[in-house]
């Protein structure tokens, strides 16, 4: 029996009994979102490249394909997964990365995994195997069901196949580091963002701003000279530590919060333990904090806050939704998964 048939059977069976299914790929993101419940439905054996056309800048892989395998396949042709999605020790899968919409340090310049997805196949709550989008960059036939899955954490279906736009790997990269406080870094990162520079990373960590430049060697050397600062040796290690969340900042079990805000919004809670990424648009905060206080800060900064690690994993961890938006998501859940089998409550207690 093929992995796909097994998955469809499992969904059909669960739907007939209104039982919960917990979608598992590489099981690298078990801690994300609310506590998983239900019988596991395994997607990891649905793996491998379906089609790769380097000159189309497009690859189609089964959803259980690991990010690290995908990276290797692309590297052979001098290409890359531009979103720099984390691979969590070679466990993370492309399906999981898309479902959780996880992108790395290059996100503000190269785009997110959600940006690069061209099409998906998924099994909905009626065990139907459906295809949306496709393999081409421009496609406006039907609603954008593929990108709707980004961040949905499997709420609407089981991804079985993902087609994604890929980009050529830059010839070279380098990183410069300048010591400064968080306020200065936020200002500087936004100032630099206004200029056409080959930036592919901008973060503030432990009292210093790190800027990564990528492109033809001569181009990034010229840019680096204009920016100033000290060269960072072995910088690939630093950026992969940021991407994989293995920098010391992410160590331990203390609470972790993620704020998505207007990139130049002022630095707040200056005594807090912060790591500022994405040129100021994504800010990590470690330690115990009052949810309401953070919500208020995020709202003032044009954004939102999610409780990524720690706290009560049975409570709501994402920005709270009320009124019409909540209603709409509930109706959307009904539209995809009428028996409510997929990852119930993983995003919200009411979904």
């Amino acid at each position, binding site marked *: 029996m093929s992995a796909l048939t097994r998955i469809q059977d499992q969904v059909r069976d669960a739907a007939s009994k209104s039982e919960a299914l917990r979608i598992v790929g590489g099981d690298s993101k078990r801690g994300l979102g609310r506590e998983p419940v239900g019988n596991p439905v395994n997607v990891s054996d649905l793996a491998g490249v379906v089609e790769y056309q380097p000159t189309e800048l497009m690859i189609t892989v089964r959803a259980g394909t690991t990010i690290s395998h995908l990276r290797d396949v692309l590297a052979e042709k001098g290409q890359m997964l531009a979103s720099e999605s984390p691979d969590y020790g070679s466990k993370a899968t492309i399906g999981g990365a898309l479902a959780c919409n996880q992108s790395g340090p290059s996100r503000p310049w190269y785009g997110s995994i*959600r940006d690069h997805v061209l099409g998906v196949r998924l099994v909905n709550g009626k065990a139907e195997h459906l295809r949306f989008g496709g393999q081409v960059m*421009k496609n406006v036939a039907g609603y954008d069901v593929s990108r709707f899955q980004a961040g949905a954490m499997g709420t609407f279906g089981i991804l079985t196949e993902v087609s994604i736009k890929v980009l050529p790997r830059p010839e070279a990269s380098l990183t410069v580091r300048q010591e400064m406080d968080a306020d200065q870094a936020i200002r500087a990162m936004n100032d630099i963002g206004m200029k056409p520079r*080959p930036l592919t990373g901008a973060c503030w960590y432990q009292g210093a701003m790190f800027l990564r430049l990528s492109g033809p060697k001569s181009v990034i050397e010229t840019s680096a000279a204009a920016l100033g600062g000290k060269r960072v040796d072995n910088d690939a290690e630093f950026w992969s530590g940021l991407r994989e969340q293995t920098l010391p900042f992410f160590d331990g079990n203390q609470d972790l919060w993620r704020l998505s805000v207007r990139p130049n919004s002022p630095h707040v809670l200056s005594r807090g333990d912060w790591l500022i990424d994405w040129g100021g648009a994504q800010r990590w905060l470690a330690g115990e904090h009052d949810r309401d206080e953070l919500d208020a800060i995020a709202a003032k900064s044009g954004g939102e806050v999610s409780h990524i690690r720690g706290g009560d994993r049975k409570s709501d961890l994402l920005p709270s939704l009320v009124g019409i938006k909540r209603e709409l998501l509930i109706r959307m859940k009904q539209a995809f998964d009428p028996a409510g089998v997929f990852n119930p409550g993983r995003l919200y207690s009411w979904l």
Partner: protein
Amino acid sequence: MSAGSTRQAVDTAGLASMFREFIDDDYVVSKTESKRPFECDGLPVYKEMPRLVVMPGSTEQVRKVMRLCHEHRIPVVVRGAGTGLSGGALPHPDGVLLSLTRLSRIIEVDPHARLARVQPGVRNIEISEASDAHGLFYAPDPSSQIACSIGGNVAENAGGVHCLKYGLTVHNVLQMTIVTVTGEIMTVGNEGLDSAGPDLMALLIGSEGMLGVVTEITVKLLPKPSHCQVVLASFDAVEPAGDAVSAVIANGIIPAGFEMMDQNAVRAAEDYAHAGYDTDAAAILLCELDGTADEVQSGVDKVAGVFEQFGATSVRVSQDEAERQLFWKGRKSAFPAIGRISPDYYCMDGTIPRRMLSRVLRGISDLSSEFGLPVANVFHAGDGNMHPLILFDESKPGELEKTEAFGARILELCVEVGGCITGEHGVGVEKMRQMLVQFDADELAQLNAIKDACDPHGLLNPGKGVPTLKRCQEYRSL
């Protein structure tokens, strides 16, 4: 749940007076002659008179209009600048045409955060104009950018000639305010880059006014590249030109724009714009590189090398801004240029994997002989989006029908080679039948379920975008 199922019959005069309670008389249009400009969009082969044209001046007024229409089960068709090419803004005969052109304010430009907050009636190019002084621009640039509105761009997920490098509308919008069919307001996205939870914003972008009404949009601005040059190459056959496109990409180059035109298009464009195109060429390529001076120089050298390697009969590089503009002028005026040589033309919008180009062009040429109608091809080579222009004469009986049948065959060919029926113009009323080629019955049922979740009574732009189950059965039985 058809749009016609009226809860309580309300006559047009009664409806107009209800709108006039909160919208100035001038902006509730009921006279036939005043409604005339709204009877079609950029695809004038479809025409229909709405019951009323309503032009709200605020989100609050949009909300009230939607509430009233929902209460009385009146269909609503939202319209921006009316430049759409698939009949997406074709009015509904029993419905209200909701024109958003009065919502035309740029609310905020924050150059430091590189974003702009605008109302939907703002024209695409105005955003770049407003950010130009800060060295910033709004990237998606559909050919109609002088006229088309950002709200319409959102509805269609508009692209342009710079998509390959800078993405579509969906990649350049951060946040939107939406008025739902019931007249409630919600915000999707935020001023950061990502938001938690399912991506409702992505679902709404490109939904052709079928799921909600957008009343405010926050877009991303990008720093303007300091340098920009175009390589213009001629080829004596279409195949090597197509192969050269793939070879440029294979060399690790992402051009800012990459366009191809066939001989018919080149001749019409040259005659019109005098851009210096080689009218003996079977195809020409325009490849634009942008970035820092070093980046552009290295790109130009590589691209010119590839073109020569693939047998280009001439390769020219723009030497200054005026020449770059001139090279583009021909391409940008291709549509009006074709309009000059033919009484009418019909623009198709399929997308294909680039490597299928030769096969598809051969197929189109065969179909052209079969139907006896000439075609000029304009192709966004970088992203695979084709615009075959079928030349016809609407005044000849039966020729429009023949043209539509020809167009349908082209779209089927696009799907057959792994592409899709519409890259950027939308399904509208025009490509409803081809939705059955693109999607199977279960997929269409899923799309309809999404529609029902957002709009249970089917009031928003009924009869467009996604064929209902009933329509699918009708199409299949024909």
